[in-house]
């Protein structure tokens, strides 16, 4: 459903992505692993159009994403949870969620989606009229994921959901992703530094280093490769 072919993205003279290719099938979870500065976040930002690649192709469901403005990408069914959570702290929990589905202009759908998200993340329902300022890190991450789900995406791009979270909450979010994949055929591209937890839910994985793919394959295979783990994944 998503084909990334030989993508090169540069910041000035730095090649942040140096010929990255990746194929993602529907209803799978793909982990993108690697150290800081490997190009993981850049890959996600290039996919949804926040950064334009210098060369290469990105095709999603028949649409050429390289030429699609960011605002339209979400309308194609791609939701992005940015690094550092990206919830808008000046707004309330409910306002953040509404924003996720506003582009649909469909009130009934909005109410249904909101109910589903509150069912999925109970703590959010109790704090719906609170400002996001008052939420804990875990709750903010739930909100960021919940807001992305409000748009009923086909493809979810998640950037470091475990960053700064307690292991228990990380596990909960990973379990949620697995459920969504199995029950709603959601496709997930998961960028993570925490390779162990990402590999535990992923179907396939790629490892980036300095903008290049140094390994790719089924998640279980990568997790079993001791050399790779020591060299790039740190566990």
């Amino acid at each position, binding site marked *: 459903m998503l084909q990334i072919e030989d993508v090169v993205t540069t910041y000035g003279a730095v090649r942040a992505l140096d010929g990255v290719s990746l194929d993602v099938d529907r209803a799978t979870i793909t982990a993108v692993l690697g150290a800081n500065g490997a190009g993981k976040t850049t890959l996600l930002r290039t996919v*949804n159009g*926040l950064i334009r690649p210098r060369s290469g192709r990105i095709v999603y469901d028949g649409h050429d994403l390289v030429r699609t403005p*960011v*605002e*339209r990408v*979400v*309308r194609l069914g791609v*939701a*992005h949870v*940015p690094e550092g959570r*990206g*919830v*808008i*702290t*000046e*707004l309330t929990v409910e*306002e953040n969620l*509404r*924003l*996720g589905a*506003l*582009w649909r*202009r469909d009130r009934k759908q909005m109410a249904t989606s909101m109910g589903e998200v509150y069912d999925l993340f109970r703590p959010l329902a109790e704090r719906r009229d609170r400002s996001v*300022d008052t939420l804990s890190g875990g709750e903010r991450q739930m909100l960021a994921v919940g*807001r992305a789900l409000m*748009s009923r995406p086909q493809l979810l791009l998640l950037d470091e959901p475990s960053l700064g979270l307690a292991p228990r909450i990380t596990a909960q979010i990973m379990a949620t992703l697995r459920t969504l994949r199995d029950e709603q055929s959601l496709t997930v591209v998961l960028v993570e530094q925490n390779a162990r937890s990402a590999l535990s839910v992923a179907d396939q994985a790629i490892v980036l280093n300095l903008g290049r793919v140094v390994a790719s394959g089924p998640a279980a295979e990568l997790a079993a490769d001791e050399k790779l783990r020591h060299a790039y994944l740190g566990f």
Partner: protein
Amino acid sequence: MFRFVNLALGGVSNGMIFAAVALSLVMIWRSTRIVNFAQGGMLMFTTFIGWDLVQVHNVNYWAALAVATLSGLILGGVSERVLVRPVENGPPLNPVIVTLGLLIALQALAGMIWGNSQSHSYPPAYDFRGYTVGSRHLFFAPNDLFIVIAVAVVVVLLYLLFQRTALGLRMRAAAFSPEVARLLGVKVGQLLTLGWAVSAAVGAIAGVLAAGTSTGYVQPTGPFDALLVYGFTAAVIGGLDSPAGAVVGGLGLGLVLSWADSYISNNIEPMYALVILVAVLMVRPNGLFARATARRV
């Protein structure tokens, strides 16, 4: 005591006008982090358009107010799109210079069309002879009541727009966090243009109201420069980021200026504004209504 209260009444309508100008500045600051110094020129120009209709072409007050407001809407939107957008991502000083340039350009243009030296009077909407209570004469007239109500209506409409509509939610998202808003499908560029348009329209209303007071008049430079200074002072007192702060700052400034003008002297009015500004910033460096948490940049 009667005099004190009476002076307060006399300050309310000016305070409401300052509040409207402050609101127009705060709206732009919130969404683009730009202090729109051209606001004084924009509202001067739109007030001149209203004046031209009322005094030269004998159009009625309300139609002229509507046209002035509409011109503000257009002027604001076009300014954002054509002048501010290209420099927005450059160094932060560039948009400031652009708005200053626009201010000077608008003043020059108004001078070419309507003349620089002459000051023109603008008719008030209602009588500006004060109400009387018994034998006492109040510094508050039907026209002042109209100004208070008009600005209050603008404030309420803005509140409803931003807090109760989907469009307002989009505008707030675009202002607080443009990149996240774009990820959620919000067309941020269009909303910035709209934000400038609405803000300039609010300024336009303030301009017409200010011109139609007992002390108001229309001239390319002068009265509207002062209005911009007081509006800016009110906005900073309120925290520059807060619409509620803008209204409170404007009203407070109106009251204090009215008292100081009468009890001390009205020859040094801008000084009082400066003193209040410094005093408030010494106690609360981020303004009265600054958010408790520091903003992430």
